[in-house]
């Protein structure tokens, strides 16, 4: 598979870019933040997204979607990263769709996938519990009770958790935190008794929630995949999420970098354009190289997801780790090279810095993925 976009993928990118640039430039996020918008994203825009087929991008055609792959999902995520548009694309169109596709029964698929495709159902994946992303450390209890299970515990950084119509929750039906066995995924109605959702206003002005589960009852038919054997399913989903977030970080990095290079060509100091100074030229060039390398690594990882999800772990670890460090570097250099202006709220660049920090933490930061790679390579 060549590491370039096909013509169809380029067209998809252009149409996503057109819509997002037009309807959701950075000022859109700024407005949602400043008005303390309750949902934190625009439902009208999500509807437009659905009409263009983006919400059902991964949904198979027989369930009303386009049946495209992870490279295409990454293409859209990258465009989202360029303007930081808040939307349920990651949580619903990518994560929940993949969860249902890979683990769902026919009944679960037909109940939810068509609604995801038409934009009427929003979903969220609830995994993290502690300070850092440690999926194996999941401790939320899912005890057997009658015909089903009873969930108790808490989740943090549930992306879009406060607007979701459906929660996908990782819990422990067996084993101890740290063990692969004993994890199970559940489809949970956020309105069920015992679910308490607190919207957490985050540094990046995107949506997240803390969710507490207090003896929440779920039926056996709400199990996604197999009881006790959920880790492989979850790990695959997380890798999909990592690929998607890495794509967002590529878009974010490239946008910040583009703005910075433009600034270097406009801003004068000491009677010269600052872009003439070699110290800045070399730093800009290094960053360009970093971004290009990361872009290749991310595309490689997305192709690996499409080819064989279970074999994509190493490529994903490389992509997410690289994307995290590259985005961090891009936003830091971006603010620094913009000087005092870069520190002001009035200037957009700070939004990118804040979003990059969240994307770093989401589904494992660069250190986490370096550790994973070292383990995969047995040293």
């Amino acid at each position, binding site marked *: 598979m060549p590491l370039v976009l096909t013509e169809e993928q380029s067209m998809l990118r252009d149409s996503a870019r057109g819509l997002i640039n037009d309807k959701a430039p950075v000022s859109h996020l700024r407005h949602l933040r400043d008005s303390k918008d309750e949902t934190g994203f625009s439902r009208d825009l999500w509807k437009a997204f659905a009409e263009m087929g983006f919400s059902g991008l991964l949904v198979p055609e027989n369930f009303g979607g386009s049946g495209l792959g992870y490279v295409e999902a990454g293409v859209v995520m990258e465009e989202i990263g360029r303007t930081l548009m808040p939307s349920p694309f990651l949580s619903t169109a990518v994560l929940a769709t993949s969860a249902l596709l890979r683990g769902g029964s026919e009944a679960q698929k037909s109940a939810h996938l068509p609604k995801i495709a038409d934009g009427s159902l929003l979903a969220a994946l609830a995994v993290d519990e502690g300070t850092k992303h440690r999926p194996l450390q999941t401790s939320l209890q899912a005890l057997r009770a009658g015909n089903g299970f009873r969930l108790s515990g808490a989740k943090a950084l549930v992306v879009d958790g406060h607007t979701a119509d459906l929660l996908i929750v990782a819990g422990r039906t067996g084993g101890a935190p740290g063990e692969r066995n004993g994890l199970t995924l559940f489809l949970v109605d956020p309105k069920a008794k015992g679910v308490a959702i607190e919207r957490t206003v985050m540094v990046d002005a995107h949506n997240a929630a803390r969710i507490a589960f207090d003896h929440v009852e779920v039926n056996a038919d709400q199990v996604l995949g197999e009881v006790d054997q959920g880790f492989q399913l979850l790990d695959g989903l997380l890798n999909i999420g990592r690929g998607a977030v890495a794509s967002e970080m590529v878009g974010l990095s490239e946008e910040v970098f583009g703005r910075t290079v433009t600034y270097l060509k406009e801003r004068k100091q000491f009677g010269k354009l600052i872009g003439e100074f070699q110290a800045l030229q070399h730093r800009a060039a290094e960053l360009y190289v970093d971004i290009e390398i990361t872009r290749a690594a991310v595309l490689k990882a997305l192709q690996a997801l499409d080819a064989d999800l279970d074999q994509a772990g190493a490529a994903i670890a490389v992509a997410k780790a690289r994307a995290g460090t590259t985005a961090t570097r891009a936003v830091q250099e971006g603010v620094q090279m913009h000087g005092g202006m870069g520190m002001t709220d009035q200037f957009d660049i700070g939004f990118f810095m804040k979003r990059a920090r969240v994307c770093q933490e989401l589904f494992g930061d660069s250190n986490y993925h370096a550790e994973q790679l070292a383990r995969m390579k047995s*040293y």
Partner: protein
Amino acid sequence: MSDLETFRRETRAWLEANCPPEMRRPMTSENDTYWGGRNAKFSSEPQRVWFERMRDKGWTVPDWPKEYGGGGLDRAEHKVLREEMTAMGARSPLSSFGIWMLGPALLKYGNEAQKKEHLPKIAAGLIRWCQGYSEPNAGSDLASLQTRAESDGDDYIINGQKIWTSYANYADWIFCLVRTDPTAKKHDGISFILFDMASKGVSTKPILLISGYSPFCETFFDNVRVPKSHVVGTVNRGWDVAKYLLQHERAMISGTGERGIGRPLGQVAADSLGSDDAGRLDDAMLRSQIAQFDIDEAAFAAVAERAIDLAKAGQSHPAFSSAMKYYGTELNKRRHEILMSAGGIDALEWESERSRGGARPRAWLRTKANSIEGGTSEVMLGIVAKRILDLPGA
């Protein structure tokens, strides 16, 4: 089954049948590289067998046209061949500046007579080439070179000095930049010319490096007579050829072709340092450095692959090889710093059989030239800044 799958199956079978087991082990010394040339000697029988079989198939230069001694493979087939050779650990049968640098320039700028004369000999490993670019006072500022070629009837008379001429003392021919118009602006008076190192007036002197080796030479030209027909491309337009060739040189030095060969760094380190009960390398900081390195190396392998695919799709930037050269060489230096760190005290040994003649420290020192030769890292970053990012200032 697609044609490409058939090709892959047949290629794998052919390589299995024809690549001697000795040629599938990682290289351990300079002797494992076969450079060809008039005075070439094989270091072993398997090396000879492997070279000759590959040569006969045109696979010393798989992607060159068959009429010039190549294999005539298209890009996809060439990639399959590379993948199959890598999977098997098969060594390159012939190393050659003729293949990596001159060949591509001749294919683009040479006239038919020049192509017919030189390309098949490069492919067959008959002539070993060296490059006459750098001069004592023209390092990174290559275009300020002073070696001059003065017209004398059908010939040029060449006088001057080159430096850092890799393996000039072993080379049969040289591809050389000379000044044919001293009055023109510095980039506009240069020509690209080929001549025999056995010509009267050519002499070389090796330069001893910090690695204890002398892969480079000073090269002197004292009234060397060269036919004008040996100019490649247009007289005084040699800079175009030079730049094109430099792209290939930079791609070569960036090491994009050799990634992932040899034992993984984490294993090398574990061999010498040991692991803890959980199987983790017994040096947490080094383990972390290796993991960071592995990430960057894997990502660099992806961008190398993408660079080829972009070129194929007509979407690559001509200056991108500078970006690759910069990162690849810095990465290679990091690899060897880690290897030295992992080797610890053992890696400090310079002259002993145990250390294979100090192979590791010598290789480490050699890599320090990577970010200097073929354009320094600073020059590469300058090229990226100006030609790709279009930042102001000349």
